[in-house]
Structure formats: C-alpha cells, structure tokens
C-alpha cells in the first residue's frame, strides 16, 4: 500500500472551505482529515483556522517560559555578580541596589521572551522545513492550495471532489 500526495489549487477561500468540509465527511482509504490535509494560503487568513477546526498553538508557553527565565536569570546573575565582585561600595548606594537591577531584569525579561518565542515559533511551526513533495509558486501568489495525502486508490475520488469545486489545477505525485 503506497501513499500519494495530491495538491489542488483554488482561486478563493470559499471553494477551499467547501472542499475541506466535504473531505471531512467522506472516508477514504489511508486518509485522515486531521492529519493528511494541509491548507496553504498566500495570506494569513483566520477563516482557514475556523473551517479547519481548533488546532492548538503553543508558542505562548515558550514565551512565558523564556520571559520568566530571562528575568530571573538577570536578577540573580546581576545580584550575584554585585555580591561577589569586590562587594565594593559605589556612590553610597547599597552593594545590591534594587532600582538598577529591576531595570536590567525588565530588559532581560523581554529579551528572553522574544528570543524564546522565536525559538518556539520555529519548533511549533516546524521550521526550517523540508519542502513538501508538491508545491506550486501560485500559493505564494494568489491561490489557495490543499495538499492531501491518501492511498493511491483514493486519488480518483479526491480528483473528482477537487474538480467539483472548480480546482484550477491538480498536481499528483508521480507513482513509485
């Protein structure tokens, strides 16, 4: 049993939505609508998320972790450095002065938050990614692509669904 990829391109979101809804209803061999269907679009489009259903985004947890780590690290690193480095008075201020340490804690809080968010983005979004087997430059231009993966016996059914909803182009992975 071998799997095949199919990519269909559509000119607007309504058609893509109809296809997604239909694909969810039918059952095909070797096709799971949650896993094997990817919608590609040229713009960030909240409606795609709606009709694809709720899929969790976990970047914010990275953000939280990164920001807290950054802030705590800053405060203890700085206070520790002040305590150990000569422990020498400067300008009559305490050796471990709070206002300056809070300023730096604040900066490091943001620094950690931003860096780890971006790291989280790369991890959660799976970047840098290997290019998928089927891709059309039209997706980065003005068309919406639906990439499905199913058993090769199902490709006829898929093709007919795509054609029914005015697919502009259908690409199929070459058989192995």
């Amino acid at each position: 049993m071998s799997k095949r990829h199919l990519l269909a391109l559509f000119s607007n979101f309504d058609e893509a939505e109809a296809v997604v809804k239909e694909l969810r209803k039918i059952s095909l061999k070797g096709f799971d609508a949650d896993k094997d269907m990817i919608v590609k679009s040229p713009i960030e489009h909240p409606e795609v998320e709606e009709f694809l259903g709720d899929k969790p985004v976990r970047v914010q947890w990275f953000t939280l972790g990164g920001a807290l780590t950054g802030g705590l690290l800053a405060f203890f690193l700085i206070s520790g450095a002040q305590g150990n480095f000569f422990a020498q008075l400067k300008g009559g201020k305490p050796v471990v002065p709070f206002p300056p340490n809070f300023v730096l804690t604040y900066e490091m809080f943001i620094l950690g938050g931003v860096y780890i968010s971006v790291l989280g983005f790369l991890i959660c979004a799976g970047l840098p990614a290997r290019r998928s087997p089927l891709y059309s430059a039209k997706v980065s231009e003005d068309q919406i692509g639906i990439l499905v993966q199913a058993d090769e016996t199902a490709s006829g059914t898929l093709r007919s669904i795509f054609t029914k909803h005015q697919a502009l182009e259908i690409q199929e992975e070459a058989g192995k």
Partner: protein
Amino acid sequence: MSVTNLLENWSDFRHKHPVEDVPHDPYKWAMSIDMDACTGCNACSVACYAENNLPVVGKEKYAHGQAMHWIRIERYWPEDDREFPDQGAQFLPMMCQQCEAAPCETVCPVGATNHTADGLNSQIYNRCIGSRYCSANCPFKVRYFNWYDYPTTENVWPAEMVQQLNPDITLRSKGVMEKCTFCIQRIRAGERSVKNEGRILRDGEVQTACQQVCPTNAITFGNLIDPDSKVHQKWKAQRVELDVDEQVKDKEEGGSELRGYRILEELRPYPSVMYMERVRESAI
C-alpha cells in the same frame, strides 16, 4: 556560591553609605583647607604635577580646557565694581573631594571608579574605557581626561625632565580618566612600612604632595577617625560632620559663625574635604 553569599551577607549588601554605615576603620582619609591661609601661589599644583606625573599639555591645549591639573587654584573676583578688583581676589584650591557617596562611581559603566575601604574614591586606569560619564556627573568637575596620548606627545615631558618622573606612578595612556588620588602611592607606602611595626599610621606620617609644599600650611591631610589627627580636630572644631547633607550648626538659630563648610554638600555627595571660609578681605 553567589546565591549563598547573597543570602548570608544580605544586610551587608543593602545598607547605604555613609548615612546608614559604620565609619571606615582604621582609616578615613580627609582634608581641611584653610582659605584664609591660601595665597594662591600654585605651589600645590606644581607639586602635584611633579608627584603624579601629570602631563604638561602646553599653552594651546590649556586654553582649550584640556589641562590636567589634578589640583587647581580657582580665582574669583568680587563683582562690586571696586577700583582694583585684584584686591578682592579669592583663591580656592580644588581637587577631587573624595566623596563618600560619589556621583561619579555609580555611573561608570565598567566600574572603573570605586569607593575604597579607607574612604577614597579610586580610579582604575586599566579598567577605564573612557565613556566620561563620571566627569559629566561630577558636580566639581575635577576629573581630567587624557584627550591625547600624552606620554608619546612631544614636549609633555622634555627629555631632561624624564628623570624627574615618579616611578611609583604609572603613566596614563590616551582615553582614560584620571583625578586626584590623595597621593595614594604615599599612603600605601606608609601603610606598608608601619605594618612591620604592627601599628597604624600616625598623624603626619603621610603627607600629600600639595600639603607638603604649601608654604602657609593651608592644607591639612590626615585620618579623620583618629582623634589625635589635626584634620579630625579641625573638623571637630568647625563642627563639620561627614555623613550629613546639612550641618547641625547651620540649622541652629541665627546660623553659625564657624568657618568650616563643604562645597555643594546639599547634593549629598558627602565630600571628604572641608574648606574654611576666608575672613580677611584682601588677597595679599
């Protein structure tokens, strides 16, 4: 470890100096300058040039304000339209005030200037990167910057003068800040020599170069916490205290007739130099 160190010594790390602090022990170096005695002869400044290897920058750079005099004699003229203003001229020897809470220390990005255990404001030339923030924040403007590489500049120390340079003092390269140290090389040498005798320095055993040459003894230098020292006695007689931003005597009704005061003490740098106001009118 740093966290253990932090927790164990937390209270040590959180007090403010000098207002919430114990006095320095066994030394707190301080000065007292009697402006009634000062004749403005500039001997102190010359002695400082000789003792501390100060570069002689020349007329042109001096006029630019790039002079390196760690101690300078400031001249002030009266503004009362008298016929000979020189008669009312006043002199004020100004050097680093070795503030107990120095504004320059907090702002240095690399920590090149610190408060030492004997109450001095130290300057680490090797550490200085030349941001000049310390000078910008110094209310007395007594910090001097090496605008050029003076040791390699011609005529700063003419060939015959090189033998005169003080071997106890390093030469400063371009781009670092320097200032009066209260002749720290003399203090350290003195401390080392009495260490063998198992005692601390007595009053008068260490003199700063400016104090040594002052023909009228206008400059008194010593250990402020030593009750037998002249500087202690002068500060006490003038009722000037180190760790306050306003002297008790000035708050008394009718003010005080005592001459001692510290310059810009209301800014709370807690300077270690007490000046004594002039009582006689003419300069000479």
